[in-house]
């Protein structure tokens, strides 16, 4: 899967202010412009509390913008309508549903008949190594497997854009590393366009095509880095030995360090 220059998502001077009409408005996102190309993984790194999740909520149409615009597939986002697949640090699996019925959730919402939805889910489950667990309840799975189910749920829905908000940060180191390369491979195979929020610079470098570094709140784009091996499915551990990795790591590290604090 090679990149085209086609843009699937575009943010144009997007601005979000919480409690704008109150005495204590909080400007979370100042003016963010970025574009996501089809088939690309774009990483967003930035200090915690700088407004990353806020930006995602705006892209998903869950909160309104106070300025600028966001469009997905050429259509301006006005409200939540299922144009994005959203995955969070919490897997948010429904404990009362089996694995397969968790995967079909989004398809059900879209009104797909149960039988068809299950067939799609079953295929994904088998393709990505969860066969045999279809009828297990999430409580019986490890944290890594649960996140995998959450990813299956997102993929089954076939959204235009996938938003991953620190999806691995609750996992232990080894599981995280494993899942990073797995998820990258899956995203590549499915040809998905993804924005990944992470505060792990290494994760950004090994998973993304481009990395956007954000400033402190209110978030603005500070720099954009092109990852030289962006399209390869890299081994997140082996990649650390490459000289470009070291170079990029310390550059981004410094940029985050230098972000002015309020």
């Amino acid at each position, binding site marked *: 899967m090679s990149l085209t220059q086609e843009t699937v998502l575009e943010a144009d001077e997007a601005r979000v202010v919480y409690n704008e009409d109150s005495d204590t408005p909080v400007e979370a996102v100042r003016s963010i412009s970025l574009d996501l190309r089809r088939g690309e993984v774009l990483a967003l790194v930035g200090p915690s509390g700088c407004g990353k999740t806020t930006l995602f909520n705006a892209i998903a149409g*869950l909160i309104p913008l106070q300025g600028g615009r966001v469009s997905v597939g050429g259509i301006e986002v006005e409200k*939540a309508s299922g144009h994005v697949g*959203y995955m969070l640090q919490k897997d948010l699996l*429904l404990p*009362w549903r089996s694995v397969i019925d968790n995967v079909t*959730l989004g398809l*059900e*919402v879209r009104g797909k008949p149960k039988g068809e939805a299950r067939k799609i889910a079953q295929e994904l489950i088998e393709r990505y190594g969860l066969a045999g667990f279809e009828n297990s309840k999430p409580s019986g799975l490890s944290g890594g497997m649960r996140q995998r189910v959450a990813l299956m749920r997102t993929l089954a*829905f076939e959204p235009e854009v996938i938003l991953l908000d620190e999806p691995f940060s609750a996992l232990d180191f080894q599981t995280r590393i494993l899942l990073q390369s797995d998820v990258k491979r899956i995203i590549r195979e499915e040809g998905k366009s993804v924005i990944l929020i992470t505060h792990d610079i290494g994760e950004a470098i090994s998973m993304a095509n481009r990395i956007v570094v954000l400033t402190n709140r209110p978030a603005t784009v500070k720099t954009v880095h092109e990852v030289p091996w962006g399209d390869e499915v890299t081994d997140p551990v082996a990649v650390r030995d490459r000289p470009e990795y070291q170079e990029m790591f310390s550059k981004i590290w410094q940029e985050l360090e230098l972000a002015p604090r309020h």
Partner: protein
Amino acid sequence: MAMATDIGEAKTQTAAPPAPKRKPRKAAGRWRITAYQFGVLLALIALWQVGLWTGVLRPYIYGTPLGVLQSFATQIANGTLIWHFWVTAQEVVLGFVIGCSLGSLAGLLLWLSPLWAKILHPYMIALNGVPKIALAPLIIVWFGLGMESKIAIAAIITFIVAFLQAYKGTQEVDQDLIRLMKSLGASQWQTFRKIVMPGSVPWIVSALRLNVGFALIGAVVGEYISAEAGLGYMVYYSGQLYDLNSVWVGIFSLMIMALILEAVVARIEKLLDMEV
């Protein structure tokens, strides 16, 4: 019985590794606990009897174990105990079913209208705080002296408890789940059916537990106030006549009814747990 099923489960365990391990000594422990439970009962009766023999307890104020047994035998023989039991059981069960089902439904549906939830908020706090049994005299006036008024008392009290609990359940649903559903483009009704309703089941079930007690209180207090039949009526009437043995028979019968209802609710709880 319990032993046999335990062994059966131990066998299937090798086939299904995720099943939690059972301790083999558990069955034996259970029998021991049952034995001790009976021991406590016997000890209490013995203490009662010793109190009577030594003159610490007066028989006409406290009744006697033998007298209770005799009263029980006569009332079984002439059918009055069964009759009172049956009347109260109907009141309790009908009140419970009506109150719990309508209350849970109303509490769940309130999630759909945040505006109404806000409007009703002070009323909910007031209802939660008031001793609900204080409504009983009013309800008797409205519904008359028959069984209907006792059913109504039990239903109204259990309604309030079920309503408040179910609504609380909807409020405790993870907001991120609701955010997820919205991002999937779900309608409010879809979120309600797929997330809020099943997510509130634990709260609804805990309300069932509480409501066994409330339904019993409602029916019995209703019978105290005014009735022609039922265990509450029997206890109250016998108390007026200083027939303490019959009072005990009534109280023990109520305890048995409570135990049966608790067991039924525990079974429902288990079923819902498997579904959910």
